[in-house]
């Protein structure tokens, strides 16, 4: 099958960027979407052109590395799946596909389809943990966990942090991501000690990173490859209100993690000597 692509090309964060058209004539329906891009990239490299940069790692939908929009749909047309799990059989011969990176103030484009999602890591760092003594593993059955709580926590923990929810949100809100982390730890007995501080810290970090707010649009949940439900946002809101309206002095965010990440050097313009 033959696929026509229109891909966002941007050399660096400082570069302006624009769409470039490509023609991939030798696609088979058994290829995954990323394998199709590999085929394109091999041709680009052979021709001496820079390949299309896109994130990928596990290519089986569990790592959360991949992700871009295909014709305006985060992770493409397949539901409950990442773009790496999407095969070319879901497209038709002669299809014109436009690939665009996640767009949000908190997700600066590094190159082509790669964005810096360090903001999500800093939300996790601000409260997505439980403080326990490590060193010796506790007895597994020492803390009884109700079945429903375990199920809800497991569902929320399915979030792979790909950022599709932010990409799909008209407000570029990270509420579904933050809500899934707050729910994951908040429904378990182990997460109770820091439950209030956690939700205040994490929502405050999300705001500081430049993510928008939730207006219950629901597109995030629809495109989520892990099928996270909107109720995690309700739980986050409830926990936040309880924390904010009760003993606030204990729930002030401990610190806002600095807006820096190992990948930030891409944003700086290259030194003049290299130009």
């Amino acid at each position, binding site marked *: 099958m033959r696929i026509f692509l229109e891909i966002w090309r941007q050399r660096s964060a400082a570069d302006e960027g624009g*769409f470039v058209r490509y023609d991939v004539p030798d696609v088979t329906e058994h290829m995954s979407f990323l394998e199709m891009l590999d085929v394109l990239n091999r041709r680009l490299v052979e021709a001496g052109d820079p390949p299309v940069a896109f994130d990928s790692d596990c290519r089986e939908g569990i790592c959360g590395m991949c992700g871009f*929009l295909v*014709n*305006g*749909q985060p992770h493409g047309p397949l539901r409950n799946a990442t773009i790496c799990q999407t095969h070319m059989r879901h497209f038709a011969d002669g299809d014109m596909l*436009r690939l*665009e990176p996640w*767009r*949000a*103030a*908190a997700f600066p484009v590094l190159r082509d389809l790669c964005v810096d999602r360090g903001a999500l890591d800093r939300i996790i760092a601000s409260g997505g943990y439980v403080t326990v003594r490590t060193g010796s593993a506790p007895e597994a059955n020492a803390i009884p966990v109700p079945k429903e709580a375990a199920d809800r926590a497991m569902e929320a923990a399915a979030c792979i942090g790909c950022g599709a929810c932010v990409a*799909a*949100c*008209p*407000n*570029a*809100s990270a509420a579904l991501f933050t809500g899934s982390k707050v729910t994951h730890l908040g429904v378990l007995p182990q997460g109770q000690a820091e439950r209030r501080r956690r939700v205040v810290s994490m*929502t*405050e970090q*999300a*705001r500081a990173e*430049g*993510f*928008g*707010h*939730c*207006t*219950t*649009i*629901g*597109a995030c*949940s*629809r*495109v989520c490859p892990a099928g996270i*439900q*909107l*109720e995690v*946002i*309700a*739980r*986050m*809101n*409830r*926990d*936040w*209100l309880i924390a*904010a*309206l009760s003993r*606030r*002095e204990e729930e002030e965010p401990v610190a806002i993690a600095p807006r820096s990440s190992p990948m930030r050097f891409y944003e700086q313009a290259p030194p003049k000597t290299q130009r």
Partner: protein
Amino acid sequence: MAAATKTLAVVPPRASRLAALWRSHVGRKALMAVTGIVLFVFVLVHMLANLQAFQGSALDRYAEQLRVFPVLLWTARGVLLLAAAVHVAAGLDLWVARRKARPVAYRDFDAEGSTAASRTMIWSGLLVLGFVVYHLLDITFGVVNPDFRPGEVLHNVVVSFGRVTAVVFYVAAVIGLGFHLWHGLWSTFQSLGVSNRAFTPGIQKTAAALATLLTVGFAAVPLAVLFGVLG
């Protein structure tokens, strides 16, 4: 003990809880939800009261009864004005924040699985706000009413809706209100954190039903006047 007292003394006075609510996105949405509930209760009562127009002079009597206790009337007006002010300010502020959160727009983008109402809250809200100002000038203050008579509510309504443009604006505004409530009523539960997978479908259906009921109830009076059923 002395050390503890000293430490307490240097702690800056903490901002009020209301300020904390305003500062956070979650809190601001909760304020919008609470003020939205106040405003919803008002429009519901208002719509039911409007239907007294079909009973003739009952509407005028009702208007008189509202003014029996001026303190109550002005308290209610104060609460409504405050709720509207907070709701509008938070809404506009969040709308500005949203534009900052995605400075570069997508080439093509469709918020999948979302309702038209949810994506147009700011516009339906501004339509209703603009209408409320006009509506107060028309029926309460009588400035833009063709033949305003203080205390004769039914007469004022009938002469106002004798004009097709007034009816069109009114019906457009209540359809906007319907859209606003269709999404707003369900989003309220989400913002206050009291929805979950078991209740959400019921909440969404009830919100849609109430929004339709209010739109039809409000539109009934001007349409009845226009088509000669009333007045």
